[in-house]
């Protein structure tokens, strides 16, 4: 195909990605020419500007018609927009954390920190807005690589190095596994476009190899569980979360996780939606119980192991593992509400988790310790930290009048709404939630009941803003989830997710 066909694509659809890419490259250049000593604040502001403008451009795409560039190697539809919003929001908040993250040995790499954040974001966004195996894979890797580096940014901190290394090794293995699975998916269908793959899977020849397909599914799926930190590839999370700088941890636990779910939905659902499994019946239905077991195991491992943690960051790592388990539930309970439920929960999770990590950052950096005791008598020392923290914890525990509750409620609707209703899964989730009460409330107990620790706490203005924002939205979404849901229903039509649209390239061929 010639140049003008190439140019004739609606490249405007990629505006957000271009903005991020542009900012990233620009910053790398600026950073290069900036003197070592000069503060990197302007870069922070620029990054913020980039993220915000990208967010704006995404919002402007709200009622953009479904667009496909070059056989869906780039694809703009409600799904991508919906989740890109989450990613940009999350990154924006994490950015503030990063900007006010005071640790001297991160200073000389601050600039890199910012634009690595952007490249990671770019990767995530590509994962959200592509329906092509290769693009998804590259996006995934872009995200991963950037995160590896960010995790290791505190070069002089042994923990940071170690976490980065563990991350890169597990990540490498995960990538290999994912690719191995993908290679079969690709091999059997000979296509990289997900829709075409789905098409080719109808081929009678393929049906003969149902088993291989199922294996391919599981291997790919297992590989992807790495990103969302769910069983079986979840064990890296605690160590990496503990070692990485707090903003990075926040990023991993929110944006990266979101991306993980996005690629799962995209890849798994579209690819296998029409695939026949072992005995000819639908593959997705067939694998459901096994994935459910994975979800259940994830919840149990996460919650149970979190009980023993004294290190707050580790505790939150386990908590985020269990949360991944929860979010897997709507994914497998093939409920008709899947997308909004996952979206809403991720939104809620974004607010509560980043909020919590903000406070953790404040306390741990000040106390130079990650032990849970940094929360001692927080209520006395500064109620304005204790109260939001309580809100976040309650939300994470799924107590009413918080976003977390509505999210969990929705997940239950998903799990129990389907036919048949998955009582046992709901049961496991409930048990998990109960166990989680213990460690979430333990933090509260430390904040309210334990005394000692008199040091006053200073909160940087930026963090204060993030805190307020997260806390308020957590409560608002808890009281009026209609806001978010209406936004979702008003702007996104999930049917777009399933329809392949022919683009110019098809006609050229």
């Amino acid at each position, binding site marked *: 195909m010639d140049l003008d066909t190439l140019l004739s694509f609606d490249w405007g659809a990629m505006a957000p990605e271009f903005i991020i890419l542009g900012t990233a490259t620009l910053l790398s250049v600026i950073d290069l020419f900036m003197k070592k000593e000069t503060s990197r604040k302007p870069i922070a502001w620029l990054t913020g500007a980039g993220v915000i403008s990208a967010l704006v451009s995404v919002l402007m795409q709200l009622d953009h018609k479904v667009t496909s560039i070059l056989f869906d190697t780039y694809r703009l539809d409600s799904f991508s927009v919906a989740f890109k919003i989450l990613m940009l929001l999350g990154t924006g908040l994490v950015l503030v954390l990063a900007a006010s993250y005071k640790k001297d040995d991160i200073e000389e790499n601050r600039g890199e920190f910012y634009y690595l954040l952007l490249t990671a974001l770019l990767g995530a966004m590509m994962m959200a807005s592509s329906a092509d*195996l*290769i693009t998804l*894979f*590259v996006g995934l*890797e872009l995200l*991963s*690589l950037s995160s*590896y*580096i960010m995790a*290791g940014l505190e*070069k*002089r*901190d*042994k*923990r940071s*190095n*170690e*976490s*980065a*290394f*563990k991350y*890169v*090794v597990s*990540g*490498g*293995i995960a*990538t*290999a596994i994912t*690719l*191995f699975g*993908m*290679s*079969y998916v*690709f*091999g*059997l*269908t*000979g*296509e*990289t476009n997900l829709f075409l793959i789905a098409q*080719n899977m109808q*081929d009678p*020849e*393929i049906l003969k190899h149902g088993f291989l397909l199922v294996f391919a599914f599981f291997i790919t799926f297992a590989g992807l569980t790495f990103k969302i930190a769910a069983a079986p590839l979840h064990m890296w999370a*605690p*160590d990496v979360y*503990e*070692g990485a700088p707090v903003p990075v941890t926040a990023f991993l636990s929110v944006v990266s996780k979101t991306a993980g779910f996005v690629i799962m939905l995209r890849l798994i659902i579209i690819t296998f939606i029409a695939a026949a499994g072992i005995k000819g019946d639908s593959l997705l239905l067939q694998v459901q119980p096994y994935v459910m077991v994975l979800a259940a195991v994830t919840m149990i491992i996460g919650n149970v192991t979190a009980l*023993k943690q004294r290190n707050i960051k*580790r505790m939150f790592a386990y908590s985020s593992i269990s949360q991944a388990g929860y979010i897997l539930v709507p994914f497998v309970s093939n409920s008709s509400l899947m997308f909004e439920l996952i979206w809403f929960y991720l939104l809620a999770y974004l607010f509560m988790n980043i909020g919590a990590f903000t406070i953790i950052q404040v306390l741990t950096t000040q106390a130079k310790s990650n032990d849970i005791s940094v929360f001692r008598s927080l209520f006395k020392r500064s109620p304005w930290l204790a109260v939001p923290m309580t809100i976040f914890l309650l939300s994470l525990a799924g107590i009413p009048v918080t976003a977390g509750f509505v999210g969990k409620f929705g997940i239950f609707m998903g799990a129990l709404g389907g036919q048949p209703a998955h009582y046992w899964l709901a049961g496991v989730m409930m048990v998990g939630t109960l166990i989680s009460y213990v460690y979430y409330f333990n933090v509260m107990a430390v904040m309210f009941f334990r005394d000692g620790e008199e040091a006053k706490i200073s909160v940087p203005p930026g963090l204060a803003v993030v805190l307020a924002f997260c806390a308020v939205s957590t409560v608002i979404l808890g009281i009026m989830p209609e806001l978010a849901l209406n936004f979702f229903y008003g702007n996104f039509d999930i049917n777009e997710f399933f329809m392949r649209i022919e683009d110019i390239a098809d006609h050229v061929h």
Partner: protein
Amino acid sequence: MSSVPLTAYLMLALILFCIGLFGALTKRNAVIVLISIELMLNAVNINLVAFAKYSLFPGLKGQIFALFTITVAAAEAAVGLAILIALYRNRQTVNVDEMDTMKR
């Protein structure tokens, strides 16, 4: 005409994948671990290229996929090594089993 069957290639890929995996999971030296991961990725590439030729729907896509994989693998290797060096600078060791300050 008799040619090498697809299975043979897949088998080879599988074997190499397993070897790579085994290396990545058991070798002590961090460098070897990284390189074993590379081996795994290579195995995947064999799959892709083989499928490109012998699948139901043959085509170049497989080879291109393989190219992307190679590139990514290279980048990963580089970053991995860089991290390793940073770690080595602080810890004076490249033994994977000594990197367990964070546990439980």
